[in-house]
Structures are given as structure tokens and as C-alpha cells.
């Protein structure tokens, strides 16, 4: 390097060194992110089978998409799932965050326990839940039968409505710790004096909640909600593993339908067109996130 840069001034050498330091990262991101991103758009205008010739077909994939009933069903399902799973995650997350807010004894242990499922893979936790939900060997049926809340074993995954509910239960368990930690950080950033002076004024719990806590946590709440929404729109593992898209294709999420078209039917061009739609939805959501988080008090 000395030989190479010997004739350069110190300033120039610093510039070159800096560039060399960031070069590997830039190359990785370019090759494994920017190029694939551009290629997704390119491929979406092609008929692109795994083996054989690709051919340019213009916007055919997109017009086919408009007539794809399962795609519309998947969009609808994904949004409904997002709508149903977000409130329980947020509300339970908020309750947990309020419970573990103050540094009382053993609180670190409780925080760790509530957060633990977050570090488990969603695929693995889905394998755990599909077994607990099983009609024959599952613990849920066993407990509900022993408590006489059921008179015969239930097939939780056989009806679309119960399938949705039990998946929501499993995802809440798996992800609520994440929301809890975000909200906890937000709660702890509120100065105690505000609550103390509210106490002096004789404000009750709900008054403090609506006039102090929630307004001051606006940004944190927006962040927790949007991250949870993005995660739900991208859901795949739980449906692939727990319901396998059933019953009657009612739980095929967007990513799942892209997966099927691309890597089961090998319609890679068509899958790319769907990916572009997914990307557009996600970009809209992240724009909202950046917009909400940008406004500073």
C-alpha cells in the first residue's frame, strides 16, 4: 500500500484509505441488494422459467396479477391478519411494559422471560405451536378437555376463523416482547416529576395515561405499531408451517403466494411482478414510518 500511495499527499491518502474501508460493504450491498432489486423489476416483465428461455412479455404478468383470484385473496388475508394481530400485540405489549417499568426486585428476570420468545426463530416457534395445537397429541386440547371447557378434541386448524386465532396467539407469544421493550424505553424516557405533579393535582390512572403517558410516547407508539405492521405484512413462516396455507387456501399470505409461484410452480417472472407489488406496499408503510418519526417536538 505504501508503494501504491507513496506519491500521494497525506490528505489524498486519507481519502483513498476511507474509500477502501467502505468498499467491501458497498460491494456486498450492490451485488446482493441493489442489483437483485433492479433485477426484480427487470424479471417482472419477463416470462422466466427456471429452465429454458426467458422472454420479454411486457406487462402481461401485471395484467395476469389483476385477474389472479388467489393473489387478491392473499392480499385480503394478509391485511386482515395484520389488522387482527396488531392490536393484541400492542395492547399486551403496553400492559407488559407498564408492569415491568419500575426497577423493583426480580424485574430483570421478568423482563427477560417476556422477551425470551423473541430470540427464538419464528420457524422453530411455529413447529412448537403446531404440535401444541394438534388434535391428538396437543396440550391445548388436553387442558381444555380436562377443564371440561371442551367435550371433544378440536381441530383448531381446520376452520379459517380458529386457524387465524391460534396463529395470532402463537405470534403474540413470539413477538410481544419486542413491542414491550420498545414501549418500555418510551415509558422510561418520561420524567417522573410529571407524574408526581399530576399526583399532587389528584389525577387518577386514566387521566395520567391519556394526558401524560400516551401523548409523550407518540413517536414510540408509532414506531412499535409500524414495525409490527411491517412484520405482519411479510408473514410467511407461521402459515407455511402451522396451517400450510389451509384450510382451503384460506391462510396463504402474500409472501407465501409469491413463494408458491416462484419456487413451487417456477414462474419466476410472475413471482417478481408480485414482489414489486409487495415492495410498493412496504415502501408506502416505511414512508409513513419515516414521516411520523421525522417530526420532532
Amino acid at each position, binding site marked *: 500500500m505504501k508503494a501504491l500511495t507513496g506519491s500521494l499527499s497525506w490528505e489524498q491518502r486519507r481519502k483513498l484509505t476511507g474509500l477502501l474501508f467502505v468498499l467491501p460493504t458497498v460491494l456486498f450491498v450492490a451485488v446482493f441488494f441493489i442489483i437483485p432489486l433492479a433485477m426484480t423489476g427487470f424479471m417482472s416483465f419477463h416470462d422466466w422459467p427456471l429452465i429454458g428461455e426467458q422472454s420479454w412479455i411486457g406487462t402481461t404478468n401485471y395484467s395476469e396479477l389483476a385477474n389472479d383470484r388467489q393473489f387478491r385473496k392473499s392480499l385480503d388475508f394478509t391485511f386482515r391478519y395484520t389488522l387482527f394481530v396488531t392490536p393484541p400485540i400492542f395492547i399486551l405489549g403496553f400492559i407488559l411494559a407498564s408492569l415491568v417499568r419500575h426497577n423493583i426486585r426480580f424485574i430483570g428476570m421478568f423482563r427477560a422471560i417476556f422477551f425470551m420468545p423473541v430470540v427464538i426463530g419464528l420457524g422453530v416457534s411455529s413447529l*412448537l405451536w403446531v404440535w401444541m395445537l394438534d388434535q391428538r397429541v396437543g396440550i391445548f386440547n388436553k387442558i381444555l378437555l380436562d377443564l371440561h371447557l371442551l367435550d371433544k378434541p378440536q381441530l383448531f386448524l381446520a376452520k379459517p376463523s380458529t386457524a387465524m386465532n391460534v396463529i395470532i396467539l402463537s405470534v403474540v407469544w413470539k413477538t410481544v416482547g419486542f413491542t414491550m421493550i420498545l414501549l418500555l424505553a418510551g415509558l422510561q424516557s418520561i420524567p417522573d416529576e410529571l407524574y408526581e405533579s399530576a399526583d399532587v393535582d389528584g389525577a387518577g390512572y386514566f387521566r395520567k395515561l391519556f394526558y401524560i403517558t400516551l401523548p409523550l410516547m407518540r413517536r414510540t407508539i408509532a414506531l412499535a405499531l409500524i414495525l409490527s405492521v411491517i412484520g405482519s405484512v411479510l408473514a410467511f413462516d407461521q402459515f407455511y408451517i402451522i396451517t400450510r396455507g389451509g384450510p382451503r387456501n384460506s391462510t396463504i399470505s402474500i409472501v407465501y403466494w409469491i413463494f408458491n409461484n416462484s419456487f413451487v410452480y417456477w414462474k419466476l417472472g410472475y413471482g417478481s411482478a408480485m*414482489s414489486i407489488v409487495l415492495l410498493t406496499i412496504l415502501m408506502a408503510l416505511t414512508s409513513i414510518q419515516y414521516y411520523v418519526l421525522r417530526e420532532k417536538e
Partner: protein
Amino acid sequence: MIPVHDRQAGLGGLTQQQRRRLQQRALLSLKYLILTVLALLFLFPIAWSLINSLKLPSEALAVPPTYLPTQIVFDNYSELTNYGNYGVAGHVENSTIVALLTVVGSLVLSTLGGYGFARFNFPGKNALFIMVLSTLMIPFQSILIPLFVMLVRFELNDTLIGLALVYITFQLPFGIFLMRNSFLAVPKEIEEAALLDGCSSLSLLYRMMLRLVLPGIVTVAIYAFINSWNEFLAALIFMSDQDKFTLPVFLTLVRSGLWGTVDWGALQAGVIVAIFPCLVVFLLLQRYYINGLIGGAVNN
């Protein structure tokens, strides 16, 4: 004169102060009660899985299930070693290799890149930094098709290296962001003195800076490990050779009963094997993990 406690009516003649203290203690007990019940509910799935992995394989299949094992054995774990061509051990090895490659790769790249972005000025620096960070806005799920086509073209599909290369890229935006902040937090004077002494940039980074940004390094390493160990969708797509499956993908084969009827006991043994390293890493280093989460999420 009226005695104080007479003026404070209610609760058996206690003073207001005593009453409030009692009330607070009752509230605190109630809080601990709720926390304990919730904690047990949260622990239950993992504990239940662990208990069942230790049952006799025949008992793990019992309909209806038993609550507690009649005896504690490791048969489910040894059974799991017989699945596939080289059993669970081979897939633990696959996952470990991919995770280690991802950890080392993202550490080297984020440290170099974070240092470069934090301490040097060069043309196009801001544009490149924005390019790296902007990938945070794009879900990797939407670029998996071309990634697959590329890996096939370079004959990197069905290789652990190929999977690790993709995982490293997914880790980079977070890693660069975190390491850049870590380097920015180090006082400049420390470096300037060393640079004036004729120390080269790379040896300065290696000899002095790494120790000062250690918390950042630990955080990047934990995230790289846990995310690559757990990732499911990309691993499912890029690997078609069963022998190359990472642990989570291998376990879906156990679940689908590819090697005979679904062996629930062995599956739960596999779940425990997959969960264990993540829990250990988290419990030992949770401060770094949580700080990374808050720093990464809130500041992005």
C-alpha cells in the same frame, strides 16, 4: 384535641400514612402475582417442549398426552440423530457454519465500513452511506427471486457459503449503522495522537479502536448469530439438497413425517436443540441485545 387517627376515618383506626403504605404493599403484591402468572404462561411452551423431549418416544406420542414424564430419558435426542443422511448433528453443523460465517463476515465488513464512514472524508461518502442504509427500507423477501437466480448462475445455491453471503448482506445496514455510531462516540484526540506517531490506519483500528468499540462489536455479533441461526425463508429457497438444510428447514422435514410417521418427541428434541443456543446467547449478553434493539429501532 382530637387524636390524629380519629380524624382519619376508615380502616380500623390507621393513620393515613399507614393506610397508604398498606395499600402500596397490597398493590405491589398484586403486581408480583400478575407478573408471576404471566411469566409462567410465557415460559410454558418452552418448558412443555423440553419436558416432552425428555419423555420416552412412545410416551411422547401418547393420545391424549400425559402431563409429566413417567421417566426421563434422552431417547428422542438419540432418535433425532438417525434422521436423514447424517442426522441432526449434520444440520446443527450446517447451521453453525452458516452462523459463524455470517458473524465473522458481518463483523469484518461492519467494522471496516463503520470506521470508514465515521472517520474519513472521501467523495461520495454520504451517497454511499445512504445507499447502504436505504436497504433497511426494502424487505429482503421482495428480492429473493433474483438472488436465487444469481446464486444458481454462480453455482452458489446449495452451498453454505452462498447462504452466508446473503445473510451477511442482510446484516450490513444495521451493522454499519451501529459501528459508525460506536466509532463516532470515541474521542478523536486518541486517534490523532497515534496518527501523528506514524501509525497506519489499519493498525490503529486493530490495535486501539477495536477495544474501544467492543460493545458495538458484541451487539453486531449477537444479531448476526441469532438472525442467521433462525432465518427460515431464504434457507428454504436457496437449499434444495437435503444434506445442506439448516436446522429449522430440517425440522420441517421431521414434522412433515418424511422419514415415516411424525415423531413428535424427536421434533420437540429438535426444537430444544434449535432454541438452546439462542437462549444462552441472549441470557448471557442480553444487555447488548436490548441496547442494539432500542438503538437500532429508534434511531433508524
